[in-house]
């Protein structure tokens, strides 16, 4: 059985239902839209490029056991298995991976979401707060008092 997905920029993708159902959102929508399966499912927050990558990921992991419980994704209790394909999959530029994270979050493709978060964590590792701010374009909004507290923390953490 095929399912049609439509990206935010109007591109339509046809995939197997079991592949699409790796997305919790799509799975839910398929239940709702049983009588209207001829219409593409709109994914308003996912562009075509990202959707293609998500579908590529889901195609590869279509036979993986389904894990619905967030607790099971606790990264340190049960580290996510990352095979060679996944490693190859993550060899993309940072912007693309970040977009993929957002897409996976929007579509609720949990394995991909965690894979992306792991990737993001690897990027953040060993970065200083300033570098992180620069990477994510974040403002430093701490008050002077909070800055003092942060300085104190730096002392005892002795990093």
């Amino acid at each position, binding site marked *: 059985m095929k399912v049609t997905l439509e990206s*935010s*920029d*109007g591109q339509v993708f046809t995939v197997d239902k079991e592949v699409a159902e790796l997305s919790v*959102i799509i799975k*839910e*929508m398929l239940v*709702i*839209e049983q009588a*209207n399966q001829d*219409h*593409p*499912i*709109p*994914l*308003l*927050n996912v562009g075509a490029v990202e959707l293609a990558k998500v579908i590529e990921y889901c195609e590869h992991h279509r036979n993986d056991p389904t894990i619905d419980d967030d607790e099971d994704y*606790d*990264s*340190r*209790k*049960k580290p996510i298995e990352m095979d060679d394909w996944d490693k190859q999959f993550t060899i993309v530029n940072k*912007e693309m991976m*970040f977009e993929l*994270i*957002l897409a996976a*979050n*929007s579509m*609720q493709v949990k394995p991909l*979401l*965690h894979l992306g*978060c*792991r990737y*993001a*964590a*690897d990027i*953040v*590792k*060993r*970065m*200083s*707060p300033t570098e*992180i*701010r620069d*990477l*994510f*374009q*974040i*403002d*430093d*909004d*701490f*008050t002077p008092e*909070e800055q003092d507290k*942060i300085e104190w*923390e*730096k002392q*005892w*953490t*002795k*990093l």
Partner: protein
Amino acid sequence: MFRYVKKGALDLLAMILPSSLLESIRQDFLSTQATNKQHNSYHECVATPVRLLLELLLVIFERVNHPTSLTEETILSQHSDDNEVSDSRRQPNIPNPSKPTLDFPYEILMLVFQYLPASDLFSVIAVNRLWRQIALLETKQIDLSECFPMDCLGLEDGVYSDFDFVCNLFSMFPLISILVIKDCYMRDRDLRVVTAGILAGKMAFTKATGPAVGSEAYRDAQRAIAKRRQQRHQCGASRDGQLTEDCNISSTRLESTSTSETSMSVRPVTKLMRGTIQEELREFSRSVGTCVLVRQARNTLRKKILERLEHNLEQKEIQQYFWMLENGFDPETFYSSTAASVSSSSGDMKRYPLVPITHYRFQDCCFAKDWGAVMDVNKLPMIGLAAAISGQGLVVDLEGSYGAPSKSIKTMLGFCFGPQCVISLDLNFRHTHMELQHVARMLSENPILDKIDIVDSPAYHGLVRLPALRGLGEILERMQEACQDLDEGGLETSLQQAKLLLLDLEKAIKDEESDQKRREADPGPNPDESSDLTEPSRFMTPLQPPLNNPNRPIKSLSQQLEFPEATSVSDRIRTAKYSEDIGLGGSLPTPDPEVEDHYYYGYDDDDEEEQDRPEGDNTDLRTDSLQTEGASISFNCRSGPLTTTTPPSSLSSSPTPLPPSVSLQQSLPVVLIPEQHPVAIALRMAKTILQLKADPNVYNHDGRSVVLCASYMGFQPMEALLIEHGGYLKELIRIRETM
């Protein structure tokens, strides 16, 4: 048409959704449409009412399941005292035109942080307020592998110990339940893995899940115990006699006896505590569980721990509640382990929550230059259970705290005196610390001392006899100096002086015990006996202070003790009362020395070789000058301060052969060297210390282990000397392990 339908649909939703959520949906939906206006024609072409509703449902679904903006605002408003800053945080960041803005929502940041070790989490919390809040509020597990401060362990004032570190950590991340430490960063400090893990669990338990004393959950557990006991009585399941050491894990029936309960009513606190552990806690623990986290520990350490738990008969009754989790706590691992059979053995298959306990040892946190750091697994289960029965007790085991800075001890004691806690002051094995008197003074000055449970610490009875310990600290220092100076005569003199002092102590203890027995035999009125002993709260609450017992002459006791002249009468009485409160007459059985010897072989893989050593001729090692049995001492506990008339020469008695485990002939090669060569002197002093340690009349006796500990302390300089000049590294390590 499209917009009309869309607006109408939103209006319909307004009937069932909160206005704030609806407005958020509306804005999202409209903005999405606006940003994608280049595709509007496409959407309009295919739009149908069903499709429109699907789009709306999609937006609603995402909004309801991922309330990013709401969550951010809530958190910021909750934790911000500065409205301006909070408001400014809500404003979108000004993007750098040269780089795209990556505005991850709350839940994604939360996930990303999960994968960060602690060192990077400390960077994350300094990024901005939102990141900080997410990291602090959502982090439940933290990886310390790359930053655990192994090398700054309370060496001097102002240097943070790992205790400080962990405390700060938990202050910052209140939801942490597991610390991750990999042994590749641990070097030879396996114990800290255990300690940090347990501490982590305990802190989480205390703050999050544990049934605090007096809490409803705690009372529920007690009621359940009472109910089960009542049922057992009704069914005739109870029987007279001593408790059966039932090691069958699948057994669900605990034999507690009314006779033992009755006898506990007149026991001092220590015995009651022990009795409580044996008879009540096994059931209580089934409702709370106990957990020890051993993560990434070395195989040898793990092996030792498991062996200890499996083969120590004394601990079999409680090993059910301990298990080792090599990869952090995992419910599946737990339920497939021994502990699962415990929790499910009651028949109702109810899964009880785990309550990790803390067993915090000074040796782990303050002894930076520790000597092999032999883990006191023997005490761990017992103390852990004591912690469990206290509900939230922080267990402080001062054993091995030798060398700990007074500041660290103060910190620890100050920390543990807040809640009801269990303190182990067991000096019985081999360690003590230079702050012994200081600790004793702090204990005696603690205003809530009667809330502290003392667990199985025979040496504690010596510790609390402050007058008897007066001067011991100086002797210990002299002993250590003698060892450092390789002064054989000085060491011998100090040992003799310490023995005299401790003989007084032993005599005082015996006298007190006999006095206690007399009081127990006295059938006079005792308010404790009138209470209902089957009530579980009886075992969970502090005893009636012995001061209220008219049979306890506090004033008389206070007059026996020696105080500085400036000490007020009230302080004297208070000290005496304190001594009574902790149970002067109690003396619990000590662990099997054979088991200890086996245990102290250390962690090396050549343990088997060590244990399989043939019992060589060790009759050359005598303890001529170290015997205390048969000493004639004139001592009257009621007549005045603790004094002795025993001459040093009367301390000697017939020599006693040493156990094979400390045979120097076996462990040290015979080398011909000049008699006054430092190595030769060190060897002789090492022998002296080993003889002292191996003396069965000294070993495991109250208070006198202090002398052994001092000797052990003094062994360090000799060890360094012998290693440097004598090439006895391996042998000395063996010696050390046998100590």
